[in-house]
């Protein structure tokens, strides 16, 4: 694998550009949209991205130049094609197309979810993991099988991060909700039963979030936060374990912003230890949304000839990871892994 790719992420609140090559991240410049109150407003987030797009792109090019990587060395431009907020995606796609035309290099459209998986495989020893990807908008369990990353289980309504945010907003805590809930949970004294919704391999969080808000009427914030976390995390760990049993894989990779939670990590670690599986968490900068992961998957795709014509580079707010043909892994990837064991 060879080449240098500039990638831009901007599916939601973090606008981030990075330049990577096969060895490492050469440069990364980000600017986060921070809502003054409440949650992310899609239009305002898109306006933020439009305002700062040139800042992050110029910034990352300058930073790379200082390290001896000139703009002329860039082989391709990649961008988050989806899933994400439509307005944000379109803004970032416009910037990416313009850059590709200016530098006269190919354009690569990256699936945001798969970028989380691939950066985890790059930055941890995981080779063929079951990935638990839990962020604001997404909650999925993914694993590679026969040419594609399959979704083994996912949320039927909202992502776990959004469920936390919604509760936090109702409870008068700030945004984002996850870190505050984690803090409150530490001082709890009892567990309050809350709805545990796993349907086959799929998850549902909206009812749980509402029930947690209701529970605040008769219980302390600490107990509710604790019970909410325990219930929600038990759900995602259960589905991850099922996917392990089903696929026969023996690695778990954690991805997405919610993965910062220490209790979630602990539960996954216990599950993996008991099953004899390895558990991997990338360092924090690669967990939440970041430009490096978009640039890295862009590099993998560029190297395997998976590029876009400008005319066909529409964004897709509902882009599914299982719609992507995995061109960057060898066809016999799974068998190779099996013979290694």
């Amino acid at each position, binding site marked *: 694998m060879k080449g240098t790719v500039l990638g831009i992420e901007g599916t939601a609140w973090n606008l981030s550009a990075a330049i990577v090559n096969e060895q490492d991240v050469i440069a990364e410049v980000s600017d986060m949209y921070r809502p003054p109150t409440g949650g992310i407003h899609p239009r305002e987030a898109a306006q933020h991205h439009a305002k700062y797009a040139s800042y992050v792109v110029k910034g990352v090019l300058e930073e790379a130049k200082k390290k001896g990587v000139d703009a002329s060395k860039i082989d391709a431009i990649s961008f988050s094609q989806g899933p994400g907020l439509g307005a944000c995606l379109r803004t970032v796609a416009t910037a990416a197309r313009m850059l590709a035309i200016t530098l006269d290099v190919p354009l690569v459209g990256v699936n945001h979810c798969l970028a989380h998986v691939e950066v985890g495989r790059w930055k941890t020893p995981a080779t063929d993991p079951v990935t638990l990807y839990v962020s604001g908008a997404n909650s999925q369990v993914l694993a590679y099988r026969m040419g594609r990353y399959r979704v083994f289980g996912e949320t039927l309504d909202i992502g776990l991060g959004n469920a936390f945010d919604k509760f936090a907003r109702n409870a008068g805590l700030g945004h984002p909700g996850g870190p505050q809930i984690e803090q409150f949970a530490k001082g709890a004294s009892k*567990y309050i039963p809350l709805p*545990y919704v796993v349907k086959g391999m799929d998850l549902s969080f909206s009812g749980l979030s509402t029930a947690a808000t209701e529970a605040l009427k008769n219980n302390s914030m600490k107990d509710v936060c604790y019970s909410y976390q325990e219930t929600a995390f*038990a759900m995602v760990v*259960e589905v991850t374990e099922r996917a392990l049993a089903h696929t026969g894989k023996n690695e778990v990779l954690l991805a997405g912003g919610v993965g910062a939670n220490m209790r979630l990590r602990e539960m996954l670690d*216990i599950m993996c230890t008991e099953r004899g599986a390895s558990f991997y968490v990338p360092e924090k900068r690669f967990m939440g949304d970041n430009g490096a992961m978009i640039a890295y998957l862009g590099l993998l795709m560029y190297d395997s000839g998976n590029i876009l014509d400008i005319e066909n580079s529409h964004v897709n707010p509902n882009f599914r990871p299982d719609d992507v043909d995995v061109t960057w892994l060898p066809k016999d990837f799974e068998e190779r892994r099996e013979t290694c064991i």
Partner: protein
Amino acid sequence: MYLTSGAEATVKVEKGIIIKERVPKSYRLKELDERIRKERTKAEARLLSEARRAGVPTPIIYDIDNSTIKMQYLDGTALRSVIDEKLSEQIGILVAELHMAGIIHGDLTTSNLILVNYRIYMIDFGLSFFDSCTEARGVDVHVLFQTFESTHDNHEKLIEAFCRGYRQEFRQADEVLERVKEIEKRGRYA
């Protein structure tokens, strides 16, 4: 003797009786763990009985407690190794009866269908639930077709035969089978 040990439960045979136990998970809170295992054990036992009432042969339940179901051991062959078109048509009839009773099996595979004296039994209702919508029925059938495709060479004939049986019994069959095609296109791993 252990038959299987999945992510959730162990199944063993003792003195000619099947004992299915939902094992504790130490990653989750004890209180929550006990609640989940109890709810699911109860639900599974109920679905097993309801299915039988609807005309679908299932193992007879002898006893249940908070996490264990004791039931009839079926001395037969998994359809996985003996399936042919005639049997597949019969599966179609059985699944139709199950769906008409408002039950979704949730894990229809040829390993969960056992042939005993020319009679097909349905086992493992661990992922079953009550639902009467086309989507849930479609996914149920889709999962079965996937096992046909992955384990049997003549899967097209088997699918045809299944559809014959399913249509013969079930008025809404066409609607469900249409949905199955749509689900296949989605490519979602179900």
